[in-house]
C-alpha cells in the first residue's frame, strides 16, 4: 500500500503538511522508513547479564534487546511465533537461560531459536516444520557501537557504518568523556506524551531560532531572577544550565551546524550552550590521567549542542542525555529522555545531567511546556488544507546537497532539510516490507 511518491511531498525547502497529519503516510513511515534505517534500541548497560532484556519498540514494532550466552546483545521481535503473545512486557527484566511463552509454554533460546514445544506429538503430521512458527522468534539486524544498540528491521539495506558515517563522533565524544570509556544508564527515563507528530520534535533539536522567543517565559524568567538578585558569586547549577537559552541570535549563528549524509547532523560545531559548565578538578585530573592533557582537553572542548541521529534519536554528548521520539500516530509521540553516568567521573557530573533532564525535558519542565505548546499548536494549525506546504527555507540555496559532511551557519534550517532529504530516501519500500507492516 503506497500513499504517493514521497519525493512529491518534499521540494526546495518546503515539506507537505501530509507528513504531519496523514495516517496513511504515517503507516508508510512505520513500514518503510523505520524499517530501512538503523534505529536506536537501547544501551548495553540496561542488560548487564545473560538473559537480561529490555523490551521496547522500533516504530510500531515491539522488540526485545536481550543479552546472549556469549555476551553479545541481540534484538528480536517481541512476539511468540505460535499465537502472537508478547513474550515479555515492555521494560526491563531477566528471562534466565530462555524465553518461555506464558500462554502455552513454548520455549526459545535467547537468540530466538525454538527450543521446545510441549507435547510435540500433537504436531506429528501437521507440516509444522514448514510453518512460520517453526523458525522461532524472528531476529533483527543488530549493531552495537560503543554500548549503544541499534537495529534495522529490513532484511537488506544500508550498512551500519555507511548509514551513520562520521556522525558516530558524537557518541565517541560522549563515551570518551568517561575516564574509563564507559557509560551506564542512570535511572528510569522521563516519559512525556506529546499530541503532535514525531518529526516536529526532531526538527526542533536544531531549530536555533526559537530559544530566545519561545523560551522567553522560562529561561527569560530565570535570567530576570538571577539579575535581580545581583548576579553575584558563582552561578547556581540551575542558572548555569538555563541562562544560555536566552542567548541572542548571534550566539546561535556563530555556533555553527554540521550535516552528515542520511539525515544526521548537529548544532554547535564551535561551541554551544553546554560549553561553559564548571568541571570539578577531580574530574579533569581523572581525564588527564586517562587520556593525557592534550587529548583530554580536546574531548572536553568538543561541546556539541544537539546531535540528530536520523530518524528519531538525539543526543547531547556534553551532558550525557539521550532523547528518543517514539512515534505512536501522526499526532501522537512518546518522548523518552535518558541520562547516563560517566564511569569513573564524580557524582557532580551526573547531578548536572539529571538536573538538566528534569529542568529541560520533563513533563514538569517549564522549557518543555513552552515547546509542547508550539508543537501542539502546529499540529492543530496544519489542519489548514488551504496552505499545504510547511516552510524550511531559512538560508536555503536551490541545489543544496547533503551527500557529504558540510559546515553551515548556525541558524540555517539546513539540518531539517537534510532530514527531509533522508526521509524521501528511506521511504522507499523495505525489503520484506510486508512482514513489518504497521
Amino acid at each position, binding site marked *: 500500500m503506497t500513499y504517493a511518491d514521497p519525493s512529491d511531498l518534499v521540494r526546495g525547502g518546503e515539506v507537505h503538511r501530509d507528513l504531519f497529519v496523514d495516517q496513511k503516510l504515517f503507516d508508510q513511515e512505520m513500514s518503510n522508513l523505520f524499517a530501512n534505517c538503523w534505529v536506536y534500541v537501547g544501551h548495553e548497560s540496561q542488560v548487564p547479564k545473560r538473559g537480561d532484556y529490555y523490551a521496547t519498540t522500533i516504530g510500531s514494532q515491539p522488540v526485545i534487546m536481550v543479552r546472549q550466552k556469549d555476551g553479545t546483545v541481540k534484538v528480536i521481535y517481541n512476539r511468540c511465533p505460535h499465537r502472537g503473545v508478547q513474550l515479555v512486557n515492555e521494560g526491563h527484566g531477566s528471562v534466565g537461560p530462555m524465553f518461555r511463552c506464558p500462554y502455552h509454554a513454548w520455549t526459545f533460546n535467547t537468540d530466538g531459536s525454538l527450543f521446545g514445544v510441549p507435547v510435540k506429538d500433537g504436531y506429528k503430521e501437521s507440516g509444522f516444520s514448514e510453518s512460520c512458527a517453526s523458525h522461532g522468534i524472528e531476529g533483527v539486524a543488530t549493531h552495537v557501537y560503543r554500548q549503544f544498540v541499534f537495529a534495522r528491521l529490513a532484511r537488506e539495506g544500508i550498512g551500519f557504518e555507511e548509514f551513520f558515517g562520521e556522525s558516530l563522533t558524537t557518541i565517541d565524544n560522549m563515551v570518551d568523556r568517561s575516564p574509563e570509556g564507559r557509560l551506564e544508564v*542512570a*535511572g*528510569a*527515563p*522521563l*516519559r*512525556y*506524551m506529546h499530541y503532535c507528530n514525531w518529526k516536529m520534535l526532531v526538527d526542533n533539536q536544531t531549530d536555533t531560532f526559537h530559544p530566545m522567543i*519561545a523560551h*522567553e*517565559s*522560562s529561561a*527569560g*524568567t*530565570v535570567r*530576570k*531572577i538571577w539579575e535581580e538578585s545581583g548576579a553575584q558569586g558563582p552561578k*547556581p547549577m*540551575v542558572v548555569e544550565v538555563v541562562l544560555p537559552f536566552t542567548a541572542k541570535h548571534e550566539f546561535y549563528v556563530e555556533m555553527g551546524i554540521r550535516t552528515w549524509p542520511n539525515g544526521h547532523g548537529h548544532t554547535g560545531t564551535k561551541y554551544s550552550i553546554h560549553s561553559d559548565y564548571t568541571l570539578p578538578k577531580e574530574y579533569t585530573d581523572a581525564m588527564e590521567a586517562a587520556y593525557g592533557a592534550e587529548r583530554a582537553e580536546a574531548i572536553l572542548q568538543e561541546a556539541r549542542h544537539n546531535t540528530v541521529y536520523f530518524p528519531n534519536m538525539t543526543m547531547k554528548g556534553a551532558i550525557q542525555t539521550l532523547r528518543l521520539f517514539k512515534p505512536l500516530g501522526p499526532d501522537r509521540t*512518546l518522548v523518552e*529522555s535518558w*541520562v547516563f553516568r560517566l564511569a569513573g567521573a564524580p*557524582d557532580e557530573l*551526573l*547531578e548536572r545531567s*539529571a*538536573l538538566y*533532564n*528534569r*529542568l529541560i525535558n*520533563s*513533563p*514538569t519542565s*517549564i522549557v*518543555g*511546556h*513552552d515547546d*509542547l*505548546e*508550539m508543537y501542539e*499548536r502546529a499540529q492543530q494549525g496544519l489542519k489548514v488544507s488551504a496552505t499545504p506546504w510547511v516552510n524550511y527555507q531559512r538560508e536555503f540555496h536551490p541545489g543544496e546537497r547533503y551527500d557529504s559532511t558540510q559546515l553551515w551557519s548556525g541558524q540555517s534550517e539546513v539540518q531539517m532539510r537534510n532530514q527531509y532529504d533522508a526521509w524521501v530516501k528511506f521511504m522507499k519500500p523495505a525489503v520484506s516490507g510486508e512482514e513489518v507492516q504497521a
Partner: protein
Amino acid sequence: MTVTKQDLVDFVYAEARMLDERRFEEWLTLFAEDGIYWMPLHHDEPNPKLVTTLFHEDLLLLKTRVLRLMGERTFSQQPASRCHHLLQAPMVDRFDPDAGEFSTWASFLYTETRADEKLFYTGWVMHDLVLIGGELRIKQKKVQLIDCDAPHRNLQLFM
C-alpha cells in the same frame, strides 16, 4: 507558638486551598528558605540528585515557576490551567515539638485542567514541617504519584 496536631492538619489543608485558589506568591512564603518541593520519578527513589526526578526544586526554581505563570508571553498558560486538590485527612507521622520538627502524610486525588483537557493524578503527599520564628514552614513537600513513571502530559501547576 505551641503547635498541636490539629495545627499540622490545618496547615496541610490550608496549603492545598491556597494552590486551588491560585495564591501562588503566598504559597511560596510557606516554604523554609532551604525548603524543597520533591516529586520522584521512581518508586523508592534513592538520591534525588543522582537520578532524574519530576520535581526537586528549591525556592529559586519555585519562584521562577510562579513568576512564569503570570508572564505575558507564557503561551502554555493561555488559557491558564486550573487545579483541584482532594485530600484524605492527613495523619501525623512525626510530632516532636521539642525539636520543632513534624511530619504528615495524606492520600490525594489531584485534577489539573487546561482548556478542554482534564488530567487526573493519584498519590500521597508527605510534609516535613519545621518551626521558624514561631511559624510552621515547609522543609520538604514530597509528592509520590502512584504512576510516577508513566508517560505524563504537561504538569504546569503544583500538587
